[in-house]
């Protein structure tokens, strides 16, 4: 019995030695972690991030690797599913940092995961860029954590100003998801900005619903009754079509204005004609895009048979920021801890990064200063550039 | 003073009169029988007396104190033990656990004891375990102490149930058809158990029973219940010869 066991083990050891010996040459590979939700509430977000990241990796591979200080490094992606859960995001981040020796992490995307995962990354001094998280707490007081998008505190006033200038309205209505971090934050910043411009009580309806709701008739009836001149809708592409259609069915004829979360091409695909003519604020306009942005959109569309959404674009930019950071390091030591620190400093120093979602410079907090784009949905359902608003 | 006294007890089930003007007196050590056709309200009377149901009218006193409105476990702790027609054993518990469980009201170690395993708890658990073994031995079931009740033969289950009822240290024991569905051998064993309870423990017993043989042998007085009303009361002999009883009860059902 015992002997048999030992023999088996000995065989195992030999197998291990013979099979895995050649793999040791992996040392020069730089690993970038991608901490995204492939399952859970928002699988689409994970899918888009993965697509963008794979496209980026293709580019690197085509170029033969990343050149740093005269040496060429291979790059590998470590894509892990965080199931859209906070605890999973933390374990994934910890695992990437301590087990997989990643140089930097992109993601998590949503704030409920980016906040705790940012804590982990900051503690382990690993650069992390959350392309999509808008919660101030994600980067607050965390030198190693950056984000790829503008904050709600910027976007809210932008929209308030835009609507005032464009339509000259005085009475606003807001409908948002109370259980979700991003819409709630943005709704509140918008309300604050609007009331600052038009006095207290000028937001005549401030209504909410809960994630996964599909019937908004009661809230919309309330909004219509309030006499609001337009509706601000900081919601995602899966709710926007429903809300807009239901509003029209209830007799709402005033404009509906959106936020950057409308940026997905799905919005207009699901919404159809009901959304035509609406304005929203976003990172980039797909229709009529130029230069690198257009190249990205065309390539992505060809490869994955769909127009890239804002998550894909922001993830793409985040990866390029990391790439630029790595390239601007004088050299990599091969010791992952030192390299992470060097990379962090390099990223923080990046000035005027030309991304497809606009030019970026990081503040001391790790938040980018970038311009917002106001987009109009054309009568053909395309996102047409309308105006650019810079801080 | 009688041990248990019931005066003019009446109960309605949403308008339906289930028990009407019921009176009962049980003295210490006495064995009383309650017979009647199915659906006459015998088990309802048990449920009323043990606090499962609250009578619409009437008074119930145990050793001179009113027990109406007390919860079943309080009445049980004051000295009315009972068995059930369908036994109601706890599926997943062993024989010993059954009998120990019925000591619940006698435990005083409280939550501290339960959570932290104090000395007091160890002592009390040991005490009730000892008592449980004594009762099981009395019921001739101690050899099954560590077995799950569901695996035991029917006669043994009945004896375990009896031990469980005795563990509440009752002054009076309510037995709801304790011999139903028994084989002749099991019946003999059960009757021995009755004798033991009566002779060795000196308990008063209130018995619902269909088998006249059992009623005849043990009961000092018998009531006959039909449609919630007592139509006859007396010694077993008197009852057996009462024409009303024969008509209502014996005439219809074959006596085992």
């Amino acid at each position, binding site marked *: 019995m015992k002997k048999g066991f030992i023999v088996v083990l000995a065989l195992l050891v030999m197998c291990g030695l013979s099979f895995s010996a050649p793999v040791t040459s992996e040392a020069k590979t730089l690993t970038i972690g991608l901490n995204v939700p492939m*399952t859970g*509430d928002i699988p689409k977000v994970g899918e888009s991030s993965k697509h963008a990241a794979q496209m980026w990796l293709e580019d690197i591979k085509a170029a033969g690797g990343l050149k740093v200080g005269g040496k060429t490094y291979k790059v590998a992606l470590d894509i892990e599913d965080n199931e859209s859960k906070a605890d999973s995001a933390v374990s994934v981040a910890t695992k990437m940092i301590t087990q997989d020796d990643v140089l930097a992490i992109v993601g998590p995307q949503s704030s409920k995961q980016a906040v705790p995962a940012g804590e982990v990354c900051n503690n382990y001094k690993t650069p992390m860029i959350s392309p999509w998280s808008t919660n101030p707490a994600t980067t607050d007081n965390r030198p190693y954590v950056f984000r790829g998008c503008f904050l709600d505190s910027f976007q809210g006033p932008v929209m308030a100003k835009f609507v005032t200038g464009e339509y000259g309205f005085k009475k606003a209505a807001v409908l948002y998801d109370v259980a979700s971090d991003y819409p709630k934050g943005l709704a509140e910043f918008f309300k604050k900005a609007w009331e600052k411009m038009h006095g207290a009580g000028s937001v005549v309806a401030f209504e*909410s619903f*809960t994630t996964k709701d599909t019937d908004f008739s*009661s809230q919309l009836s309330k909004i219509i009754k309030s006499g609001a001149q337009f509706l601000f809708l900081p919601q995602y592409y899966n709710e926007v*079509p429903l809300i807009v259609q239901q509003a029209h*069915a209830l*007799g709402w004829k005033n404009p509906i204005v959106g936020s950057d979360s409308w940026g997905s091409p799905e919005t207009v695909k699901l919404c*159809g004609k009901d959304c035509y003519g609406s304005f929203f604020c976003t990172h980039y306009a797909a229709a009529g895009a130029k230069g690198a942005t257009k190249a990205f959109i065309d390539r992505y569309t060809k490869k994955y048979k769909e127009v890239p959404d804002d998550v894909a674009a922001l993830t793409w930019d985040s990866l390029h920021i990391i790439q630029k950071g790595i390239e601007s390091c004088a050299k990599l030591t091969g010791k992952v801890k030192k390299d992470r620190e060097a990379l962090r400093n390099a990223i923080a120093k990046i000035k005027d990064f030309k991304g497809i979602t606009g030019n970026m410079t990081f503040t001391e907090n790790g938040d980018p200063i970038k311009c917002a784009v106001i987009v109009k949905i054309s009568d053909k359902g395309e996102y047409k550039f309308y105006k650019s608003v810079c801080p | 003073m009688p041990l248990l006294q019931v005066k003019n007890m009446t109960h309605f089930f949403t308008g339906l009169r289930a028990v009407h003007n019921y009176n009962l007196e049980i003295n210490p050590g006495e064995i009383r029988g309650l017979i009647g056709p199915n659906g006459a309200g015998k088990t309802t009377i048990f449920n009323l007396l043990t606090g499962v149901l609250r009578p619409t009218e009437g008074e119930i006193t145990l050793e001179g104190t009113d027990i109406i409105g007390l919860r079943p476990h309080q009445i049980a702790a004051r000295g009315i033990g009972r068995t059930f027609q369908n036994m109601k054993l706890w*599926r997943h518990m062993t024989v010993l656990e059954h009998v120990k469980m019925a000591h619940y009201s006698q435990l005083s170690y409280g939550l501290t004891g339960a959570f932290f395993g104090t000395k007091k708890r160890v002592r009390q658990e040991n005490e009730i375990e000892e008592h449980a073994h004594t009762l099981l031995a009395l019921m001739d079931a101690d050899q099954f102490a560590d077995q799950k009740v569901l695996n035991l033969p029917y006669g043994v289950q009945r004896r375990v149930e009896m031990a469980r009822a005795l563990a509440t240290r009752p002054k009076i024991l309510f037995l709801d058809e304790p011999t139903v569905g028994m084989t002749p051998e099991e019946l003999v064993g059960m009757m021995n158990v009755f004798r033991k309870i009566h002779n060795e423990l000196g308990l008063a017993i209130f018995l619902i029973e269909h088998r006249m043989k059992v009623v005849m042998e043990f009961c000092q007085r018998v009531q006959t219940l039909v449609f919630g009303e007592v139509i006859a009361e007396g010694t077993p002999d008197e009852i057996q010869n009462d024409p009303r009883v024969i008509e209502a009860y014996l005439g219809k059902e074959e006596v085992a």
Partner: protein
Amino acid sequence: MTYFLQNVINALQWGSFYALIALGYSMVYSIMMLFNFAHGDIFMTGAYIGLGIATGLLAIVSSGVIALPGWLILVLTIIISMFITSLLGVLVERIGYRPLRNAPRASAAITGLMIGIILETGNLALLGAKRFSFPPLIMTKAYNISGVFVTNKKILVVLVSLTLMLALDLFVRKTKWGMAMRAMSYDFVVVPLMGVSIDVIAPMTFAIGSGLAAAGGVLYGVAYPVLDPYMGILIGWKAFVAAILGGRGSIMGAALAGFLLGFIEIFVTMIFPSTLRDLIAFSIVLVILTFRPHGFFGKPYSAKLRL
């Protein structure tokens, strides 16, 4: 007043969905004494099947083989997807519940929960993460009746679900199988001895329940045309609340409780700040159950999840 009436209309539509899903829950719950936690996901699957059929039919129509009006396509879609989803229901019963017929009820509930997760992730794996929009089979027409807005879709949803409820009620009260089901809900043990096999009744119950869920799913697709794999979870759990609120053994009770839940949610939003909707709506449910512990129409019956 118009505002109030508007909300009554809103609640009627929203309640219809709760009612339809709660009916399926209640069928299985009343007859089999099971929590079919997969029901919300069967509803989702029904909607997706409906989507597939509608798309297919539209493709046939647009290729010019036959000309079908939109409403006929809708009717066909509902009927076919009800049928296919019924088969799915039978399959779920066969795989997930029949082996557990003598097991504790809670275990069967867990199986249902897991089948639900499999349906969700299976959908995700098959169709990918992108959402689908339900094809507009009928054009939305909004009618303005002195300030109260009603659309043809809303009327359709309410009418179809009421029709289905009545049909189910007739089935259960008048047909042989329906009576057998009712008998089964009274006595799980005796009825099989009377020549009614539970192996027939159980799949049939699941089939009907799933069929209703599919009808709900297609109507849902018409009314809220964005489908996603997780759309059945929340509405399913809330319909579960309605089904039990209605009371065991009372299928119509479940439907009424579904409407009641819809009305509570809509009117709480109407009166209170909408952020407090879930808080107040569920507190009302809690209070109702504290004072009417057996639901509205259920028999005073305390079912244990026996181990």
